[in-house]
């Protein structure tokens, strides 16, 4: 019989898989349990953009740290992961947004992130499909793109090679006090339990505030050379800021297959996965406004996904407020793919009692209790 696991990870999305890989690499005996199959939740619907964000120091720290980890990993990633160092192009529609471009440029430069300001002509040279009258943009060449389900598969496979076990199709009913109990009654005891259960994280750990934020994506047929970077409008940041309103923002991605991924939308309170025709139409019209010839491309599939969102837009990484043996690794909103590797490192450092590479305070779940206490 196998020796009992030292760490049980609930959830085989990219965050759970990254944690499994990291912990197994440190020699710990890991068991990953997923209610379905890996990437069945938010990971399977995700865009796969690896991006450095500057919304706050804490957001910058974790996205930058994680991006470096992805770069370190890139040579080991098999073809199916489709790692593409295409970079991000943030586009500015007007002078107002150009001001934001300059602010971002300074911010990144001060922190050692390579960035380049492009004027109206240069931004079109970088992406000929963009409409003529844009004010300019910011190119961040260090950003990249992966195919999340296969990235998750790679991380899980690595974990398995290092001795981890993965259980599929096993819903977890409860975790706590060193035990994970499956819906069928089976009990696993472990020193640490990691709640990487995505949308289900609040169900398993009390006191954590994670709410689903629905998004839509469209993927086209293959049009090689249509797009070269992940292109995002600066208005995206306004969209990501709103806590209540439905919003859309221009966000397109070239896949290595030559297919174009078109997003993005954000809705709070939507509780079903059905495609919302009117938000879809708004999202596409927004995209056409920036890249007119998207109209002509053949759309093969539309799908929805739920980003697990926290009120302060930072993930929850650390001990659950009620039970220190449970570590929460959830609430990554639209940055789950990007920050998965850093999340794993931070979780690992907590388990091993080591100093984390970046300060962990901003991500501790206990902050949510404190925030609520002040309301």
């Amino acid at each position, binding site marked *: 019989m196998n020796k009992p696991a030292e760490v049980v990870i609930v959830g085989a999305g990219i965050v759970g898989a990254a944690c499994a890989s990291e912990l197994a690499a440190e020699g710990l005996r890991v068991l990953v349990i997923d209610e379905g199959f890996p990437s069945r939740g938010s990971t399977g619907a995700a865009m796969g953009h690896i991006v450095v964000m500057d919304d706050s120091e804490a957001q910058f720290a974790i996205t930058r740290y994680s991006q470096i980890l992805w770069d370190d990993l890139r040579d080991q990633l098999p073809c199916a992961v489709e790692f593409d160092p295409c970079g991000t192009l943030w586009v500015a529609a007007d002078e107002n947004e150009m001001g934001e471009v300059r602010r971002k440029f300074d911010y990144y430069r001060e922190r050692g992130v390579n960035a380049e300001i492009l004027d109206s002509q240069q931004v079109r040279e970088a992406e000929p499909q963009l409409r003529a009258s844009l004010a300019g943009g910011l190119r961040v060449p260090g950003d990249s793109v992966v195919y999340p389900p296969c990235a998750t598969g790679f991380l899980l496979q690595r974990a398995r090679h290092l001795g981890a076990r993965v259980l599929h199709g096993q819903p977890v009913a409860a975790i706590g006090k060193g035990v994970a109990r499956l819906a069928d009654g089976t009990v696993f005891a472990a020193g640490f339990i990691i709640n990487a259960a995505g949308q289900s994280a609040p169900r398993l750990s009390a006191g954590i505030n994670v709410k689903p934020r629905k998004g839509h994506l469209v993927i086209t047929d293959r049009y090689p050379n249509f797009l070269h970077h992940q292109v995002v409008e600066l208005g995206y940041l306004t969209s990501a800021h709103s806590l209540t309103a439905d919003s859309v923002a221009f966000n397109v991605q070239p896949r290595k*297959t030559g297919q174009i991924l078109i997003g993005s939308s954000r809705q709070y309170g939507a509780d079903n996965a059905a495609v919302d025709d009117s938000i879809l139409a708004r999202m596409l019209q927004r995209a056409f406004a920036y890249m007119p010839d998207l109209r002509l491309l*053949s759309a093969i599939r539309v799908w929805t996904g739920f980003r697990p969102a926290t009120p302060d837009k930072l993930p929850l990484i650390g001990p659950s407020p009620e039970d220190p043996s449970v570590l929460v690794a959830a609430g990554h909103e639209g940055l789950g793919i990007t920050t998965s590797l850093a999340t794993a490192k931070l979780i690992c450092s907590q388990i091993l009692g080591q100093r984390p590479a970046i300060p962990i305070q901003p991500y501790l779940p206990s902050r949510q209790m404190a925030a609520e206490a002040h309301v």
Partner: protein
Amino acid sequence: MSESVSVRVNGKAVTVRAGATVAVAVLASGAACRTSVSGQPRSPLCGMGTCFECRVAINGEPQRRSCQVLCESNMEIEAYG
């Protein structure tokens, strides 16, 4: 009414009967319709517009299902098979 139609497939003139589809013109020219993602030549499978194997570019527009398009005089067809 003319009984045949003349189109060009990869620059080569091909004549088919009036009412024939572009897929038939491509087959008549000896070309395959497309090259698959792993490099295989592909030609029509279902003949009824559901398999997407017969995709070619017609008058510059790519990804057209050739079995669903009737040949018109002087059409320019690019088959990448």
